[in-house]
């Protein structure tokens, strides 16, 4: 039986407030999908729905073909790792890890053996008799992980598991989580607000906003080809220039931005260009040149910062404030009149914003 998790047209409310709107998600067996977004975007609600702590007002949740939608939380057989660890304060590390096995009627030798094996795997066998209060944050999170994994759940879920740890430990732990998840091939849902964490650990990432998934894709695709303005901003596209096509000649398009800025863009290099669009890029998608005839956005260069691989400029243009990179070989002084030339490989054409609201 493949442990595929499917959320089919889920809508959820808190009282009369709608917190999830027609959300669908399909996670393949063994895949780790992150739900990424700011607080209030619905990522934790989604996790709690899957766990069974909330009931959707519409839609179904199935795991391995079995309908979970109305199943009580304690019968769902899902391994959960909480942000604040949620260890049982009155039970030893070993009893914490053995708790799920106990509920499944696994007793004595068999339980002790599995608990020990699991504690070995997370490197905590020597602390088996400690109480959670005597552990460090990283150790607590390992116990929480062991406790969720030992029941060999068909689905593992993580609710911001690393946000209470310090930076160094966070990186170590996420590698550890990924390795354990890979080794077990467990289908997983990982909730976080940390983009780096989500991108580094996931097969796919769902970027959420106001109860909807804005884009579900591999980290590579999200990073390079955001599907809409929201995702583009989220993954760090600083320059979003609203444009309107004013002329089309064969493969070439002339488009105008605010302030009468005109650019000609080649459809072979940018792909299909709709009549209204957003030209989106990071700073390296706009190249600074002092050639006054270059086909670019006229700009006055402001503050220059050194990035190691390039110089970055704060630029004032008729189309608004933009960020652009210039060559290391030619630093420009503030106040220089320059042109910002779009680099097609680093730019993306997006639908205008009002259409994805």
């Amino acid at each position, binding site marked *: 039986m493949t442990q595929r998790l499917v959320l089919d047209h889920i809508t959820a409310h808190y009282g009369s407030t709608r917190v999830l709107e027609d959300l669908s998600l399909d996670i393949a067996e063994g895949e780790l999908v992150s739900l990424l977004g700011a607080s209030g975007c619905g990522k934790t609600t989604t996790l709690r729905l899957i*766990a*069974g*702590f909330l009931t959707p007002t519409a839609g179904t949740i199935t795991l391995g073909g079995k309908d979970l939608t109305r199943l*009580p*939380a*304690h*019968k*769902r*057989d*899902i*391994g*959960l790792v*909480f*942000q*604040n660890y*949620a*260890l*049982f*304060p*009155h039970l030893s590390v070993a009893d914490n890890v053995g*708790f*799920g096995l106990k*509920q*499944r009627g696994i007793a004595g030798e068999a339980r002790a053996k599995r608990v020990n094996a699991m504690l070995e795997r997370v490197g905590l066998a020597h602390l088996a008799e400690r109480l959670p209060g005597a552990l460090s944050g990283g150790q607590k999170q390992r116990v*929480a992980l062991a*406790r*969720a994994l030992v*029941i060999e759940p068909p689905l593992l879920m993580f609710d911001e598991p690393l946000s209470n740890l310090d930076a160094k430990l966070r990186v170590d732990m996420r590698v550890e989580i990924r390795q354990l998840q890979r080794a077990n091939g467990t289908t997983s849902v990982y909730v976080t607000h940390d983009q780096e964490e989500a991108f580094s650990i996931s097969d796919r990432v769902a970027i959420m906003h106001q109860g909807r998934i804005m884009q579900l894709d591999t980290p590579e695709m999200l990073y390079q080809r955001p599907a809409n303005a929201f995702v583009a901003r989220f993954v760090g596209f600083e320059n979003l220039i609203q444009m309107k096509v004013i002329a089309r000649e064969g493969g070439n398009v002339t488009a105008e931005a605010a302030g009468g800025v005109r650019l000609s863009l080649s459809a072979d290099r940018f792909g299909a260009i709709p009549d209204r669009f957003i030209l989106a890029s990071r700073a390296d998608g706009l190249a600074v040149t002092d050639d006054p005839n270059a086909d670019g956005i006229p700009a006055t260069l402001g503050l220059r910062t050194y990035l190691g691989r390039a110089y970055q400029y704060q630029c004032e243009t008729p189309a608004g404030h933009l960020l652009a990179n210039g060559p290391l070989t030619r630093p420009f002084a503030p106040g220089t009149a320059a042109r910002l030339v779009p680099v097609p490989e680093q730019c993306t054409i997006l639908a205008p914003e009002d259409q994805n609201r």
Partner: protein
Amino acid sequence: MTRSVHPALIALAVLVFIFLVGPLVIVVGAALSDTSYLTFPPQGLSLRWFENIFEIAAFRRTIVTSLQIAFISTGIALLIGIPAAYAMNRYRVQLPGWLSTLFVLPVLVPELVLGFSLLKSVAVQFTIPIYISLVIGHTLLVLPYVVRVISASLAGFDFSVEEAAVSLGSPPLKTFFTILLPNVRSGVIAAFILAFITSINDVSISIFMTGPGISTLPIQILAHTEQFFDPTVASVSVLLMVLTVAVMAIVERTLGLTFLAK
């Protein structure tokens, strides 16, 4: 670091101390007096007034009644108070704010008023037997303490621990007993002790609820004093005092008194 304390402050502290402890010393002294009337300082030393407590049937009966009422009403208050405190902490967001105020309201109403109203509009109205009226009155009396103390110990409880247990396959009700209760055990013990002492020492409500044939110890002490002026009441008071101090000592040893101050 040494700090000089103003002599007046020391004098004041001594005065307060005398004021607090003085009456207790007088009661203990009077209880040990060999005379047949209440007097201090004691004249002669004797334990015969302690013996006398147990020779008077009314004292024997009321001690038993008081203990029974205290146990039963504290038990009922715990049965109501624990789920109430749990619900108010667990679903704090969903529940209206005045609900927690409602549970401490009996403390704000003068006990005499509470006792009188209970007598007039409950006990007499529905012709409830004396013993049951006493249980009802005392339950009401101690419930706020129970809710308050258990709420305090639940305030620090992380309810995601409960969810963790449920996600691992433990049904909600079982989780309440195996996960939640063990973690608020000290709160439950403290609530029990506080409620028990409050019930044992209560006069204001009991005086309305007691009646022919059934009385509690403090009421019996009052009745006895009205008729006899012998040191028996002092001895009973000392007995109550010892009981209370013993209970407090147990709390202090196991949980620390600061716990009750929370």
